[in-house]
């Protein structure tokens, strides 16, 4: 059978090289021209707990969502099999390491008690005993799953002999052994694998040789299955493809957008962005060095935002990156920036809250925290990105908005986007323009908060022959403290009325994007990582005769009231469905608050795992056909 797409899960213990396997696999597939998305799920743990890669590969598109069940499950340990046996579809393939044979669920120490109980009851309801052997034979007999064993011990032994590796060194190959098996069953050209290994390990000739040796042995071991899940030849035509995570595209966007100062305090899933910026602190251009980007690891998030504001006062494009707990600590600083009309960019990667919540899992439950954080009223802009490419452009655009309007800009992303890898075309540089906003005239008499225009002329600290003052208190045009009621009212309203200007000047095409049918029977509404899955869901439903539209909100604040109202005018509120990775589906409330439009239906997921294509299409169908207002989806381990 020729396929255009394939979904798979590759699982094993954290620290066993899964991440490397994911990269090598993705790079090989990208090399061959396929579109890939791969999400990495992991516990807040460094070594030993269950981690997995959920991947979707396509020959016809660059997929932006995941789905269950998958066609192939790859288990390097018993926990993977126990955790994911339900994620594999009838007639699928189970590639497993033979070392998992004869393992009892009760003997796997890394499985949480609640999880163990839940799996046990699932197994017993299916009449399966709690060990790997009975589970594998159940899958084979009742679900027509084809088991493909890989004897990695044999491969370790051969590796050790040939390259004089000790047991520990050899065991590091456990994930790549299974990754190799995948490339064989997918019928990938070994050259593509070699290319990927070379890319991943660079000049390390020994690693290349060892990996290729592993691939050859695995190839022989599973030669009967070569190409059993082969995809059609790719039909996309880019010569160069980026293979990137969301963290990485944001860092790239910031670099293109001219970031010059970034300060951060380590937190998952934001820290990788700052690490990447530090790695690229100076770039080469044809005309000489570009930069520097000064990256400061601060003592806490409070210092991170404060130093970012300080740097911005000197005219440097400045930003920070954090997630919920860190953002909470930054709020006082953001208020100061708002009161002092200081451009700063806060890249806010949402994860599962409240408190430290699910530190390594995703969510979209911080929308209102971004919109309404801080005491007092002040203008801020909140952007949200729906996919990797949007995240890149938005990271650059956030600086333009911040500087042009002299406001803090909060750029909302989520863990799903931050940590998933996709294949994506290179950015189009002609779409990026840098706008720095109004500059003042240097010299004595300069007034930082000049009231004669909504946007006061800005000058950096250190401007020639110029002095200026800033204060967190209410201030006069010079920046000195003032409690005069008339001054208060003028300053206050000037600051807030910028929002009107921003709403007027930002193009509608940026504020929200519309996908699918123009005069639809129903509309999905969402933001952030919902975009990919929603677009693919309306496509699928359209082939089932349901004409849908997806409204992807990108400018969250100031809310694009007019544009949104125009779009959904004429639609029955019960045909508008808001989708969000949260319990409250806050986007529906935000819409109601700004437009008076009642969103009749909601789809919610708050397990910390992304919404999958199949569960979304089912939920949409059931909401449209029934009277229920709310659907909760919860697939995924």
């Amino acid at each position, binding site marked *: 059978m020729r396929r255009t797409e394939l979904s798979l899960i590759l699982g094993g213990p954290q620290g066993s090289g899964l991440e490397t396997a994911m990269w090598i696999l993705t790079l090989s597939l990208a090399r061959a021209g396929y579109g890939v998305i791969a999400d990495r799920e992991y516990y807040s743990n460094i070594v030993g707990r269950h981690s997995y890669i959920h991947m979707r590969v396509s020959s016809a598109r660059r997929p932006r969502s995941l789905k269950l069940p998958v066609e192939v499950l790859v288990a390097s340990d018993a926990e993977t099999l126990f955790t994911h046996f339900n994620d594999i579809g009838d007639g699928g393939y189970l590639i497993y390491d033979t070392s998992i044979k004869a393992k009892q669920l009760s003997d796997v120490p890394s499985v949480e008690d609640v999880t163990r109980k839940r799996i046990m009851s699932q197994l017993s309801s299916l009449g399966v005993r709690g060990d790997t052997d009975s589970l594998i034979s159940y899958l084979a007999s009742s679900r027509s799953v084809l088991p493909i064993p890989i004897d990695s011990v044999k491969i370790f032994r051969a590796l050790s002999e040939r390259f004089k590796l000790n047991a520990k060194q050899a065991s590091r190959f456990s994930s790549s052994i299974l990754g190799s098996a995948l490339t064989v069953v997918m019928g990938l050209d070994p050259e593509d694998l070699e290319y990927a290994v070379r890319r991943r390990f660079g000049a390390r000739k020994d690693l290349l040789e060892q990996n290729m040796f592993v691939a050859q042995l695995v190839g022989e071991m599973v030669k009967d299955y070569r190409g059993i899940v082969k995809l059609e030849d790719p039909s996309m035509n880019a010569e160069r493809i980026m293979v990137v995570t969301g963290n990485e595209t944001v860092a*790239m966007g910031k670099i293109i957008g001219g970031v010059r*100062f970034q300060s951060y305090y380590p937190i998952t899933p934001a820290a990788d962005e700052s690490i990447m910026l530090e790695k690229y602190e100076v770039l080469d251009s044809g005309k000489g060095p570009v930069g520097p980007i000064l990256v400061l690891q601060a003592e806490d998030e409070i210092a991170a935002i404060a130093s970012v504001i300080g740097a911005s006062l000197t005219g440097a494009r400045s930003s920070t990156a954090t997630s919920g707990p860190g953002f909470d600590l930054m709020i006082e600083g953001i208020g100061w920036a708002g009161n002092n009309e200081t451009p700063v960019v806060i890249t806010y990667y949402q994860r599962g809250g409240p408190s430290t919540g699910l530190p390594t899992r995703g969510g979209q439950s911080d929308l209102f925290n971004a919109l309404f954080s801080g005491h007092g009223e002040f203008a801020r802009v909140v952007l949200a990105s729906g996919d990797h490419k949007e995240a890149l452009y938005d990271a650059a655009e956030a600086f333009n908005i911040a500087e042009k309007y002299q406001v803090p800009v909060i750029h909302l992303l989520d863990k799903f986007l931050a940590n998933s890898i996709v294949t994506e075309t290179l950015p189009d540089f002609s779409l990026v323009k840098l706008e720095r906003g109004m500059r003042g005239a240097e010299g004595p008499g300069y007034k930082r908060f000049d009231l004669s225009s909504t946007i006061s002329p800005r000058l950096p600290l250190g401007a020639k022959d110029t002095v200026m003052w800033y204060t967190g208190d209410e201030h006069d045009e010079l920046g000195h403290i003032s409690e005069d009621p008339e001054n208060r009212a003028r300053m206050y309203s000037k600051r807030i009325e910028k929002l009107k200007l921003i709403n007027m000047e930002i193009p509608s095409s940026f504020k929200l994007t519309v996908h699918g049918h123009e005069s639809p029977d129903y509309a999905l509404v969402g933001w952030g990582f919902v975009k990919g899955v929603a677009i693919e869901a309306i496509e699928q439903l359209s082939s089932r005769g349901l004409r849908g539209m997806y409204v992807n909100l990108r400018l969250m604040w100031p809310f694009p009231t007019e544009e949104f109202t125009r779009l959904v005018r004429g639609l029955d509120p019960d045909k508008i469905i808001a989708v969000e990775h949260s319990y409250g589906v806050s986007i529906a409330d935000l819409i109601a608050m700004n437009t008076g439009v009642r969103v009749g239906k909601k789809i919610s997921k708050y397990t910390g795992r992304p919404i999958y294509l199949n569960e979304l299409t089912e939920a949409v169908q059931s909401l449209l056909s029934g009277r229920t207002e709310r659907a909760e989806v919860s697939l995924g381990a």
Partner: protein
Amino acid sequence: MPDRWSFKSTVWPDWCPGCGNYGILTALIRSLEELGVDPSKTVVVSGIGCSGKTPHFVNVNGVHTLHGRAIPFAMGIKLARPELTVVVHGGDGDLLGIGAGHFVALGRRNLDIVVILHNNGVYGLTKGQASPTLPLGSKTKGIPRPNLQAAVNPLMLALAAGYTFVARGYAFEGEHLKTLIKKAVEHKGSAIIDVLQPCVTFNDILTPEYYKARIYKLESDPGWDPVVRTPEEREAKLLRAVQKALEPWDKIPIGVLYADETQSTMEERLSERLKIYPALNPSNSPISGADGGPVISVDDFAKAFSDYIVEVKKTQGRFNLKG
């Protein structure tokens, strides 16, 4: 700037009559005058409290920030534009209570910033609660019961944190304080001056009379030499500074306790790693080209991020134009 620039702003200082802050303000203004700094290249950064208002009374750039956060604001300013002279003003509550973490972090960085600690033993602007420098058991008039928390020694903390210039001054020893501020500004690296500042409204223990009877100047000892000129001298001079910082409060030394010229500053460490930093820094490095586009081209991008870019193998497949 005009030839004769007044370093005193036109804003009326609204401190209580007799407050020690006046002495600090005067010493600051006179030191800036005598140093002949360019007001547009000088920034006074403050926290919150009575002391936090200082920038408004000085005619150089002023940034009045948040309670406890003056140091990180100052850090961002200094790192992004190293040519600026940056002086931080904060209360003892500000720098040693809510901002203690930042106070310590600055020492580790040895970034070229001067911190002037207005040490009055109380939280002035919130009406006299005990600050982290108020001795254990003290009952000042602003608090209903004797203080249950012991005092932190700012000089010891600064020495432990790595400040390379550590001094103590007294608000009403104007000439002496002025000299300390000048030395601190001229010092390369993180400098702290713990200024004893009578709060005449709320602290009825640490009063001007109290200090008058106890203060003596370190410089009155002709053999006192706090300057570390070679790394070998460091340990002995640090120990002597610690001894001075620990002297019991019946005799209070003021003056420079420690001045280490041998430690690298954060700017130097950065310049070593980032060769372009002294010439190109975050505040002056160009970010866009003539056309308003990014300074890097798509080719620069592809070269810089080649690790992330895959050249797709020519496949036999059909091509469409979806890109």
